[in-house]
């Protein structure tokens, strides 16, 4: 056994990694629990990749067979419904943990120098995760997903000059058709995974480079220098968290499995009560709030502009809050609270 280990180490230099792992420290303080969110995202993403590949064994991204193939997975393939359910629930959990991760970084101000690039790559990862959710939602090709995709791909149309072009790029034409399914499928299965792995690589490299950030308050306390080695102490704790999360995921997947609507009919009117996935609900509700014309401008354009501005603000947050002075921190903190409450409030409103 030792000989094999020595052989691998001579060629790959794995001992360097384990030395780094042992040297790397995870600070111990009252906010250490948030350090677990990052790896939990990785857990869910790994589950998505595995279940996604398995689903892709039987899924057909064509207008004729998309819905039928998903129905086949749910009824004929042994335990197909569990795999699909896990895929669906893991998507929800992944985006939920991404949002928790973002909030924890925002509230502990871990985006400050020198970690601005880490934050920005993180926001891009959030966008990629949402894109995963959006593209994946169309693939079962039932009434709900068709309607949601029609609405979602229609939003860019209100942008002047490039709007129609963007919508056409997303849809593979003017309307949502079979070409849209192919497009969304290849983006979901190939383009986005490549992108997310590339951005994730940069994100993780930056995290290792700068080390774990410690919140200001915790950094001044008596446990200032308390830390855990990453390997094996923190990894073991992370594994325990992963096991529990996995158990909860599988339980939810078995008891609350999603169903499948009938195949989408391109000619039928939109069904009543359409709504996107929960992570888009606040945007959905925001769009509903805006009147059709504001100050002579197209209401939808203003809504898109506002949401775009919001995204830019989130992306460039470290550049706005670039001083450790306490005063500036408070304003940003209230802004983050307000945004968070806004999204929660609108999400709940859209469900009523």
């Amino acid at each position: 056994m030792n000989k094999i280990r020595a052989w691998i180490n001579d060629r790959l230099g794995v001992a360097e990694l384990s030395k780094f792992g042992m040297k790397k420290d995870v600070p111990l303080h009252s906010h250490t629990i948030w350090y677990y969110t990052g790896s939990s995202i990785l857990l869910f993403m790994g589950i998505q990749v595995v279940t996604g590949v398995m689903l892709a064994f039987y899924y057909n991204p064509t207008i004729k067979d998309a819905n039928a193939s998903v129905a086949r997975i749910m009824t004929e393939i042994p335990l197909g419904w569990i795999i699909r359910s896990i895929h669906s629930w893991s998507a929800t959990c992944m985006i939920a943990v991404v949002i928790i991760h973002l909030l924890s970084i925002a509230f502990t101000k871990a985006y400050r120098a020198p970690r601005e690039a880490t934050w920005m790559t993180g926001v891009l990862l959030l966008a990629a995760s949402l894109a995963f959710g959006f593209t994946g939602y169309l693939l079962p090709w039932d009434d709900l997903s068709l309607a949601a995709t029609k609405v979602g791909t229609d939003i860019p149309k209100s942008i002047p000059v490039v709007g129609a072009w963007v919508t056409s790029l997303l849809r593979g034409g003017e309307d949502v058709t079979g070409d849209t399914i192919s497009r969304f499928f290849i983006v979901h299965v190939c383009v986005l995974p490549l992108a997310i792995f590339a951005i994730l690589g940069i994100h993780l490299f930056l995290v290792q480079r700068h080390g774990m950030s410690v919140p200001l308050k915790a950094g001044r306390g008596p446990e200032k220098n308390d830390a855990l080695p990453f390997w094996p102490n923190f990894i073991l704790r992370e594994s325990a968290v992963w096991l529990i999360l996995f158990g909860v995921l599988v339980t939810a997947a078995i008891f609350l499995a999603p169903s499948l609507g009938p195949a989408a009919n391109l000619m039928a009117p939109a069904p009543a009560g359409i709504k996107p996935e929960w992570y888009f609900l606040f945007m959905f509700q925001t769009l509903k709030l805006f009147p059709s014309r504001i100050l002579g401008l197209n209401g939808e354009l203003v809504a898109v502009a506002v949401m775009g501005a919001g995204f830019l603000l989130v992306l460039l947050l470290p550049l706005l809050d670039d001083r450790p002075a306490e005063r500036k921190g408070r304003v940003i903190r209230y802004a983050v609270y307000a945004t968070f409450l806004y999204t929660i409030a609108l999400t709940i409103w859209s469900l009523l």
Partner: protein
Amino acid sequence: MTTRRRSLVGTGLLALTLCALVLSSAGLFSQEPPKPPAEKPAVEAAKGETHPPPMAPRDQNRVYVFLAWTWLTIGVLLYILRLKIREADRVYRTGLFRATEAGKEPQKR
């Protein structure tokens, strides 16, 4: 520990895991795969929605047994992890490995 003893331990553990594998697949999944509930999708399709197959009680029970088995395994693993975490923390507190950063790690596995 001599090589012979190590290989004995390794073989024992491998046998244990193989048993777990065989038992889990034999006990739960060996019988012919559950017949697809042919009538259910037809009925559901008429209603317009396909729900995950409720399946015959026998198959439903299998899923619940699998879930219980998963949780049991998770529980056992959590217990073992607790022991391992306690050991790792204890080792860290003695400062044993911090002192040997320069040289190679003594017998750590």
